């Protein structure tokens, strides 16, 4: 994933779009990914959070699919893997919620606020909320990616187009 711009031999026209789009995508892809992670992780401080972060992550993958065709994106995130992240994100959310019920006052109780206090306006604050944001981002990124893939390619590997 180098950022250098040395001239290369023009690859044979495979699936996907033109060389310019491919090169720009190759440069932008890590930036989009990092931006998505940033939005997710600072969701408790600034506007953002799990859902926008997840959407940005999914958009990064979708951009790769548009530019290069399905194969390259699926090498990084195969549909089976995506549906595992999809369910896994939701289960992680429920698990953290259940931990709240065990350690604290109720389901989704912010139990880390007591055990792991932080200062307001710092990354380490808000207890379980950043963890929940990560779970949501996983779920949203995977399911949005799956929805778009199912709708555009419509292969038989997944019957429904996104249950939620």
């Amino acid at each position, binding site marked *: 994933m180098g950022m250098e711009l040395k001239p290369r031999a023009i690859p044979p026209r495979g699936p996907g779009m033109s060389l310019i789009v491919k090169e720009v995508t190759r440069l932008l892809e890590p930036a989009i990914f990092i931006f998505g992670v940033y939005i997710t992780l600072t969701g408790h401080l600034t506007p953002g959070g799990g859902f926008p972060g997840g959407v940005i992550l999914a958009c990064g993958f979708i951009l790769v699919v548009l530019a290069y065709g399905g194969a390259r994106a699926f090498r990084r995130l195969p549909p089976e893997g995506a*549906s595992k992240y999809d369910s896994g994100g*939701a289960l992680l959310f*429920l698990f953290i*919620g259940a931990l709240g019920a065990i350690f604290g006052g109720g*389901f989704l109780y912010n139990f880390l606020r007591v055990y792991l206090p932080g200062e307001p306006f710092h990354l380490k604050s808000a207890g379980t909320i950043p963890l929940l944001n990560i779970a949501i981002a996983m779920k949203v990124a995977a399911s949005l990616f799956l929805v778009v893939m199912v709708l555009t390619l419509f292969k038989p590997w997944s019957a429904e187009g996104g*249950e939620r």
Partner: protein
Amino acid sequence: MSLVFLLVALPLGGGFFLPLLDKFWEESRAKELLAWAITLTTTVLAFLSLGWRGIYQMSGWPPPIGINLVVDGLSAAMLIVVNAIALLVVIYSSKYMEDWTPTGKFYGLFFLMLAGMNGVILTGDMFNLFVFLEIASIASYALVGFRRGGEELEAAFKYLVLGSIGSSFVIFGVGLLYAATGNLNMARISLVLAERGGGGGALIGITSAFFLVGFGLKAALVPFHAWLPDAHSSAPAPISAMLSGVLIKVLGVYCLMRVFFNVIGIGEVQANLLIWGGAISMVLGALLAVGQEDFKRLLAYSSISQVGYIVMALGIGGSLLLRGEEAIAGLALLGGFFHLINHAANKALLFLNSGAIEEATGTRDLSKMGGLFHRMPLTGMTTLFGVLSIAGIPPFAGFWSKLIIIVAALWGGFYPEAAILIAVSVLTLAYYMRVEREAFFGPVPDRLKSVREAPAMMNLATVVLALGAIGLGALYLPGLRELVLQPVSQVLLEGLRYARMVLGG
């Protein structure tokens, strides 16, 4: 009480976990066992909730700020209906869904729907109600199209569009309510509106119109009923049983009850709309059912008609409540809820049997059946029980609930309504007797000679429901009445008690 969140969290977890198992255990029974375990736990919790009264604070925030789950008489009784039928449906589907490959996906969607319904029943927050309503609805849209045939997809699309319109109306109503009161907590809203003095003015009138259209679409009241016959007859049989048995009641009737009796407070206009919406649904549903040849479509039209009974009883109760005749109003509301329980059990039973018959004979067309009583005695017997109960023949449960509604209508002076109630009962008996005559009695046609009884697992569920068709009548006996039905009518009668219970004081 501190376990009440499991009623939502367990099915939700199951809904996401079970599809994952599809990849590891293609042919394993583990998915079914897990599904049984989850529904059994939620059913036990639902029965335990009869003894619980109070609120559960999500994330530990107190009521007006945080979202809380509320258990009172109405939600406890509703939870039992939903989860008990879900348990029986899961038992039934372990056999029925066997030859459909992605069972994990099926159970996943099923549990999302169950989680949504339990959430709708428990939540004490208007917007949260909408979110759970949508979870249940979206899962049910996908389940209607689960077979992916042409007709199923078409029915699912129709259901999806009309369901989305209904949801948009509901959330517009929620937005109006927030604009009018500055709150989303149901208890807080009802207190704010009560302090302003009844009625609430034009804004509340518009809001209740939005809610009436939205929840009316979900409950398939007559001007908005077009999706129901297609959706309920196209879904797989266990899902039809869930949709007709509980989904329309939770998303439609329960929300109408909660919003109009506990949150906004019922007014004269709303009560009359409920009465006449119910009456038109009853009559039109029954008339359309008479001509149906397709067994499942007939059952679906019958659902429209029977939901009309419940809604009309609600309207009569609300109207009497406004006149201050609390005793008779209580009787009407109690009768309405009693009929809701009976209809849930009976219609689930009939839809499950329609699935067994479709599996055995390969058709849903009544004119192609005949003499099934000889070939499938147990299915025939349970169907007969369900039919007699839903048509209101004396020893069966459906008779008592209809009787209570009619008596309340007569005492309250609603004579034309009582006449409609009786006439539709007769009509119901007529079209169900046609089912019995065409499908179950008479000689066995040649092509059905080889038909065999449904598997034991499927019959277990239907036999339990058939016993319910007789036994549920006992709910009105003194002793049991105080346990289930009386608390429900109390919650509906004293609209502000809900708010006081939630907010304390």
